[in-house]
């Protein structure tokens, strides 16, 4: 355990020292929140549930995506490219330890992003959380782990840093644009909304929205099961296909 925390501490210090990813993952969701709030306004036809409430889960998901689909795979691909992993290959370290350190270090960035979004929504815009905090946190962690697992698979299977960048972008941008993160989902035509069902994050945002609005999650078991399955499968695949070097 001490080993895990030593490595985690090193990773966290390193990520504080290269702040571009942090800005990308932490500031962008807050900016999008503010912009969407200004452009789309607070409410729709006095229904009580404003647009901002409907998409609150989406704002949380922006940070998850930036960290899980860009920061995590690109960071690992760079370590492989720079032969940092090759140096670790000739030590007794277990690949699972390295991957979990990366996972937790990036989760920390993602969680800071979520807290900042939540604080901005509550303090600046008076958004109230309708659902239980425990449910929201659980939903958030489920979405985060499943998206991170996809990022780990990209990290393990991409042959080099260039390809990791391409694959990450191909997964990241559609997920970001069409899951209802930056652009509120109700804006899309119905066909696009239906097609978006292939994006795991779409289901994640539905779960997050339901959790933040205090709606019962019983009807969402298929979505919850899907994300849990993605999380488990992704972690297994990334461990099985883990490569130290780009031979």
């Amino acid at each position, binding site marked *: 355990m*001490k*080993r895990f925390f*030593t*490595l985690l501490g*090193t990773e966290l*210090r*390193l990520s504080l*020292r*290269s702040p571009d990813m942090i800005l990308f993952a932490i500031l962008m969701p807050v900016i999008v929140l503010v912009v969407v709030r200004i452009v789309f306004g607070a409410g729709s036809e006095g229904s009580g549930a404003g647009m901002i409430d409907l998409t609150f889960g989406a704002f949380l998901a922006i940070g998850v995506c930036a960290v899980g689909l860009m920061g995590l795979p690109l960071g690992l691909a*760079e*370590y492989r490219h*720079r*032969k*940092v992993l*090759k*140096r*670790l*290959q*000739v*030590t*007794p*370290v*277990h690949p699972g330890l390295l991957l979990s350190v990366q996972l937790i270090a990036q989760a920390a960035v993602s969680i800071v992003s979520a807290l900042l979004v939540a604080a901005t929504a509550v303090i600046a815009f008076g958004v109230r959380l309708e659902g239980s905090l425990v449910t929201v946190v659980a939903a958030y962690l489920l979405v985060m782990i499943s998206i991170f697992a996809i990022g780990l698979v990209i990290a393990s299977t991409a042959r080099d840093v260039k390809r990791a960048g391409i694959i990450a972008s191909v997964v990241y941008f559609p997920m970001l644009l069409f899951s209802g993160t930056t652009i509120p989902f109700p804006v899309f035509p119905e066909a696009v909304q239906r097609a978006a069902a292939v994006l795991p994050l779409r289901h994640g945002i539905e779960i997050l929205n339901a959790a933040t609005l205090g709606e019962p999650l019983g009807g969402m078991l298929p979505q919850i099961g899907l994300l849990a399955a993605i999380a488990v499968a992704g972690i297994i695949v990334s461990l099985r296909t883990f490569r*130290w*070097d780009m*031979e």
Partner: protein
Amino acid sequence: MKNLDILTVRGLSKSYGQLQAVRDVSFSVAAGEIFGILGPNGSGKTTTIECVLGTRSKGTGEVAVLGQDPVSDRRNVFRRVGVQFQDSAWQPGIRVGEICRATACLYDPEPDWRPMLESFDLAKREHTAVESLSGGERQKLSILLACIHGPELVFLDELTTGLDPLARRETWGFIRRMQENGTSVVLTSHFMDEVEQLCGRAMILRDGQKVAEGTVAELEARGEGKNLEESYIRLVGGTL
């Protein structure tokens, strides 16, 4: 009674596409020995070391490091083996003390790296970013990291390339002290004075094949030169 050979390599071959990088190379290293691998650039020194370590897949041949397979027994082997690669790799932005701590924590029991930092004259650099070190300091750091856990066997690829004469002598002293403490060493080098100073035995590679093996005196005799350097140049096909 344990096998005294700490490393055995039999019939190692490796090719990259059409290029046969290593061809049927066999050698063994006895406990407590410093063994040199010499040869011109591209002769297969690094490929040999990497195939032995399992960081490159070997084509054919048998490798036993401390009696174990470095691929299937990776974690057990590298608890007792240290490696310094020719092109050492660092996380961007990491500092000297941080990489020492992060490397030391991988071993049981966790080694105390501060005295080593002192002995390599790097203590004042503890809070310096690795990329801000001089080439020689980085080289010393990568040797330190390879030896941080007091390995029984250590691989050093181009041990003193980039070091100034003083730092080379210091590094030789460090290697000798490790040997006195029972560590075996496999090193590659382009410097014949280094080989004369350190190696009990060495082998010379040329185009991926072993052309000679023996003590410094034996290699000198094989090449019929006035000294090791002359013999080496003859053995690898050069002209004096």
